């Protein structure tokens, strides 16, 4: 914009300089020619001739813009159409710019440009022009040029704004689509206008890239599913065979314990594959439209009732605080599973005779479910890592578990557009599920 304004200024400056400069030069040239002519007349016909020519010229054309003054050696006027020798300094190249009062026009002030000339007898001749019109024309040109600059810049600005707008709109369209895709709408594509401009081409390329990513992701998902499925099938057969072998053994046979251990190992493997597949499906699936209305308070009561017997074995007490009874759209079994996984962790890491708080509240229309224990907690640096599949903190490697429990909770939370947040219970861990847009129970 600045570059553009600069070049416009230079261009118009050049036009100004060439037109106005040309007009000034033209005036100067006319005056000089007149001086030359008058000087010739003077040398031919002497003083009287010159005076008569000047007087003649003034009388013949009284409104002329010409200025004449014939003056004696002490600058007292002898003939001419101005009343006195102007009180103005000569420039280096012999020109004078001055103002004079015109006796013919009620002593109005005029601007003039003139050149004095010394005649042979020590007399002076001043020949000039009234440059009112020249100045007026110059003003006109300057005004025209200023308007030209203003209009050009205004049009440029307006055009620029319109172009930027349409560009921003195209970029906005792409940004909007990207955000929606990142938010999980993987089938969303950037709109194309078919205009084949650069933005359209960008959109087409982005769409092609998204299609390719989608294809690869589907491929990976299928491979994962197939691997898990292919591994589960032989494992199932292995388990079935072990079971049949177990059934055929006599009571008291020394092999019984080994076989039972093998069956339970196979079960653990199957459970791990099952959990992996489950997480993958939850992550890929999202919440279906016909999700049920789930009463979170009921889930917490049921979970507490199911697990209090397990907690009792460690003399752990449950403190169930239901401050609200929010209803959320969701999958009842998966939400129950998430609560169970959190509760199971809380029991696992709680010290003997500790207390676990199950807290459900309504924070400005958002359901917040919190399970807090007084165990070792999760250090802030590990809080993201524990959500990764198979991640286990060093301290907990000796504990039973697959390292998938919290990954599943995170997947269920994401599916329900809830946030899984860990906080410090000083000491211990607070695991919070923060839901959005709940439906209040209608009383």
């Amino acid at each position: 914009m600045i570059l553009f304004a600069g070049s416009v200024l230079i261009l118009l400056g050049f036009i100004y300089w060439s037109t106005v400069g040309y007009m000034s030069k033209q005036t100067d040239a006319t005056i000089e020619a007149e001086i030359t002519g008058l000087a010739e007349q003077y040398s031919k016909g002497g003083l009287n001739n010159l005076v008569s020519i000047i007087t003649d010229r003034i009388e013949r054309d009284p409104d002329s813009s010409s200025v004449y003054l014939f003056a004696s050696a002490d600058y007292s006027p002898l003939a001419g159409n101005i009343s006195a020798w102007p009180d103005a300094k000569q420039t280096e190249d012999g020109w004078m710019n001055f103002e004079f009062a015109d006796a013919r026009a009620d002593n109005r002030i005029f601007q003039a440009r003139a050149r004095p000339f010394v005649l042979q007898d020590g007399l002076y001749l001043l020949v000039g022009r009234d440059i009112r019109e020249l100045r007026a024309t110059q003003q006109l040109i300057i005004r025209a040029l200023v308007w030209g600059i203003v209009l050009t810049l205004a049009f440029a600005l307006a055009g620029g704004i319109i172009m930027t707008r349409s560009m921003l709109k195209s970029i906005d369209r792409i940004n909007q689509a990207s955000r929606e895709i990142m938010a999980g709408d993987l089938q969303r594509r950037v709109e194309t206008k078919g205009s084949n401009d650069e933005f359209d081409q960008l959109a087409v390329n982005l769409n092609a890239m998204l299609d390719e990513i989608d294809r690869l992701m589907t491929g990976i998902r299928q491979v994962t599913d197939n691997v898990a499925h292919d591994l589960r099938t032989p494992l199932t057969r292995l388990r079935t065979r072990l079971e049949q072998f177990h059934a055929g053994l006599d009571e008291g046979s020394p092999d019984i314990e080994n076989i039972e251990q093998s069956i339970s190992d196979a079960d653990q493997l199957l459970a791990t594959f099952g959990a992996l597949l489950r997480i993958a499906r939850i992550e890929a699936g999202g919440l279906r439209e016909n999700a049920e209305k789930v009463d979170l308070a009921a889930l917490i009561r049921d979970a507490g009732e199911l697990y209090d017997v397990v907690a009792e074995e460690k003399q752990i007490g449950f403190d169930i605080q239901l401050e609200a009874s929010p209803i959320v759209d969701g999958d009842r079994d998966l939400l129950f599973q998430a609560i169970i996984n959190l509760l199971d962790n809380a029991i696992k890491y709680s010290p003997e005779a500790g207390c676990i708080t199950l807290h459900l509240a309504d924070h400005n229309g958002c359901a917040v479910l919190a399970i807090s224990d007084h165990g070792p907690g999760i250090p802030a640096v590990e809080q993201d890592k524990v959500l990764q599949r198979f991640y286990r903190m060093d301290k907990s490697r000796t504990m039973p578990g697959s390292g998938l429990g919290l990954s599943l909770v995170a997947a269920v939370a994401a599916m329900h557009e809830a946030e899984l947040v860990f906080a410090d219970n000083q000491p211990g861990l607070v695991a919070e599920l923060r839901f959005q847009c709940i439906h209040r129970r209608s009383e």
Partner: protein
Amino acid sequence: MRLLLIEDDPVVASYLEQGLGEAGYNVDLAADGKSGLVLACTEDYDAMIIDRMLPGVDGLTIVKSVRATENKTPILILSTLGEVYDRVEGLKAGADDYLIKPFAFSELHARLEALQRRSDNSLNMETELRVGDLELNLLSRTASRAGKVIELQPREYRLLEYLMRHAGQVVTRTMLLEHVWDYHFDPQTNVIDVHISHLRSKVDKGHASPLLQTVRGAGYMINENR
């Protein structure tokens, strides 16, 4: 006992056929949807086990077709589609139970027996369940053993009721979770075992013959010792 098994995986099919045969069932096997549908609609069975994903006609279509003819044979669906919506879809189509692959054979066997019992019992309105000297009054919701009242929590009552309704049959842990707690989930720990041991201490403590038995590798069973 005549059983129809519709399963396209030959290995799974042969294991099931063998296992069910040993368990005393007379098994007809169909390896694809079409022949399975023909058998299901023309022959008379005591129960059907139908794989959900089949070549030709899929499992749910077979279930719907069978139910459309007012045939009330108990149907169990086998599926690898383990999520809740799939299960709901299967049950809505008219199946009686839904089992996710992979499963233990003991789980399938226990569920088949439960289905048999359900269809036998569906008509008689019992007011009392009895196993040995253990009595459960379904009207007053009280339990007593050898004439002595047993104090039960509501959940313990439901647990005992489910076990007694399936007396003499193996009941698996997932069956208990599904029917007593009404959740389909993976319990992570041996939480059911703890509940059972609490119940056992109330039911069997101080009595010479224990009624509530653990079936290794399968589940639990309440049964009169003979």
